């Protein structure tokens, strides 16, 4: 009781500070289902016309469902490849002695901190050369490559916390190095793997710049570029409520994933302390 009272001022302050945000979110949701007279604050009629992009094909560029499927493929493929490579590469960096190991470690840190947007022209040229420009595969490859340093670094942190003795014990028990990795070490880093999977999926889902520059056509379009089209295209009259509806549609999976997996995602920030 007293503890609650003592924290009351803090709660009050936090409420006031975050009120603008909450109001913005609330109006985003309200606006998608209503119309408001110009100059007025309160909506005056209920409507579903802002959600018409879901069923009518004359809104936006291309179908929203194709974009959704594209986004899903893009995000999940990226997540799977990043996690798969990180899982093995990080083990090697954490445990195995091989030539230029220090170089690789330093490289990963540098790449991790590198502003990727500066690479975009070079990447554009390479994709053009490979004939992968304006394809989903091309964007996936680029996104995966750029996401890998982060993934490897995170997974290495998790591997580093697994005691050496467990591996030594496994080897003494007669298991091969591969079996030790699969049966004894992988289960220990499994929380990290789960977090990395979700994290890289979300990162792929929200990626905007790469698809915008490297897959500008409508075939390989993802939701972020589908959404941006409403703002970028000059020929259209900007319909902000439609824009908000598409935005909400785009954000709902992210919110759901965060709600379901927030505990696992927290692992990545504590990465290493517990595993």
């Amino acid at each position: 009781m007293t503890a609650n009272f003592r924290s009351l001022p803090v709660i009050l302050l936090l409420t006031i500070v975050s009120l603008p945000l909450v109001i913005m979110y609330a109006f985003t949701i309200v606006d998608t289902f209503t119309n408001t007279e110009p100059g007025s604050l309160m909506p005056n009629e209920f409507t579903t016309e802002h959600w018409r992009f879901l069923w009518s094909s004359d809104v936006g560029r291309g179908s929203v469902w194709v974009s959704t499927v594209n986004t899903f493929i893009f995000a999940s493929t990226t997540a799977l490849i990043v996690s798969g490579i990180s899982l093995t590469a990080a083990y090697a960096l954490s445990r195995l002695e091989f030539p230029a190991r220090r170089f690789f470690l330093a490289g990963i840190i540098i790449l991790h901190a590198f502003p990727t947007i500066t690479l975009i022209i070079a990447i554009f040229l390479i994709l053009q050369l490979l004939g992968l420009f304006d394809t989903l595969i091309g964007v996936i490859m680029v996104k995966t490559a750029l996401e890998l340093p982060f993934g490897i670094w995170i997974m290495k942190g998790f591997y580093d916390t697994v005691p050496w003795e467990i591996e030594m014990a496994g080897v003494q028990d007669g298991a091969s190095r591969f079996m030790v990795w699969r049966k004894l070490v992988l289960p220990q880093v499994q929380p990290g793997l789960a977090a990395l999977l979700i994290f890289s999926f979300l990162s792929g889902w929200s990626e905007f710049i790469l698809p915008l520059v490297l897959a500008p056509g409508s075939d390989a379009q993802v939701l972020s570029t589908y959404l941006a089209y409403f703002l970028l295209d000059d020929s259209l009259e900007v319909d902000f409520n439609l824009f908000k509806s598409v935005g909400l549609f785009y954000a709902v999976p992210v919110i759901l994933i965060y709600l379901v997996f927030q505990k696992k995602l927290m692992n990545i920030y504590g990465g290493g302390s517990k595993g």
Partner: protein
Amino acid sequence: MQLKLNNFTKTFGEVTVIDGMDLTVNDGEMMALLGPSGCGKSTTLFTICGIHRMNGGDLHFGDRDVTHLPSQQRNVGVVFQNYALYPHMDIRDNIAFPLKVQKQDSATIKRKVNEIAELVHIPELLDRKPAQLSGGQQQRVALARALVRQPDVLLLDEPLANLDAKLRLEMRSEIRRIQLETGITAILVTHDQVEAMSMCDRIALMRDGKIEQLSEPSEMYNNPANTFVAGFLGNPPISFVNAQVAGGSFTFGDNTVAIAEALKPRVGGEVQLGIRPEHFGPQFGTGVTGKISFVETQGREDLYNVTLNSGGMIRSIQPAGERLKMGDAVSWGVSPEAVLAFDTSGDRL
């Protein structure tokens, strides 16, 4: 199975940790590798189990040359200092893991796991996870896992270091019982002389990558080869004083200690005397005078530090009784037969 290490050399980069060491552990024997940290005892252990490669020499288990075999093919059971149980498996799976690796059928695995659990007294713990066990229980599981596939050699790396004092006492006798019951050849690495003396048939006392002395515990205690061995064994530790040989007795300052007949022909000039605390006290007469500078009560016994008038200090341990106080002047004697004499370079005379 007999274990034979021949001319074993191990280097890490530029540093030679062990240079030309020979060690033979007989079949069914429990051998202690004892020494201060950094003496190379753990390196030796990890080389025997194959985690470190040898830079020179060879290793035989019985007639089998295992020098170049990887760990997986050596058939060595290891108990690590932190037990290294697999945290995601329950105890049954932990113990069964070496058998599953060998792809034994599940009926055999079940039978063997139950047998070994019986041996180490943990049948009721099989369905728990390692995190739910106490240190002593984890220790038993680690032992069971190391023993379940009937290894040629059992290696124990500081197995008692993580246990509290009471459990340590219990596990000391438990490990010895299990070793005797299975009749396995075992090597125990420890820095604790009490563990080594109480658990093992023989002790190899190491310093700086060399074996200083290899003998049975009582022999090593009563008959140390040099001051290092004498100083390492015994708790409370032995005291050393520098003395001269003059007229049939050792003298240091105004103190005299008689020389035992057997020792007389071997000593002369400057010597170092090693006097164990149980061989110095009023029951051995007089001759050594000083002041009590420290008293420590150990319940059954009292430990005194006696600072000699001539400088230097000798410890004495006596049955608890009428307690002397710090600062009391004493004149006690030393048992002549029990005095250990070393030359100035530290070797036994």
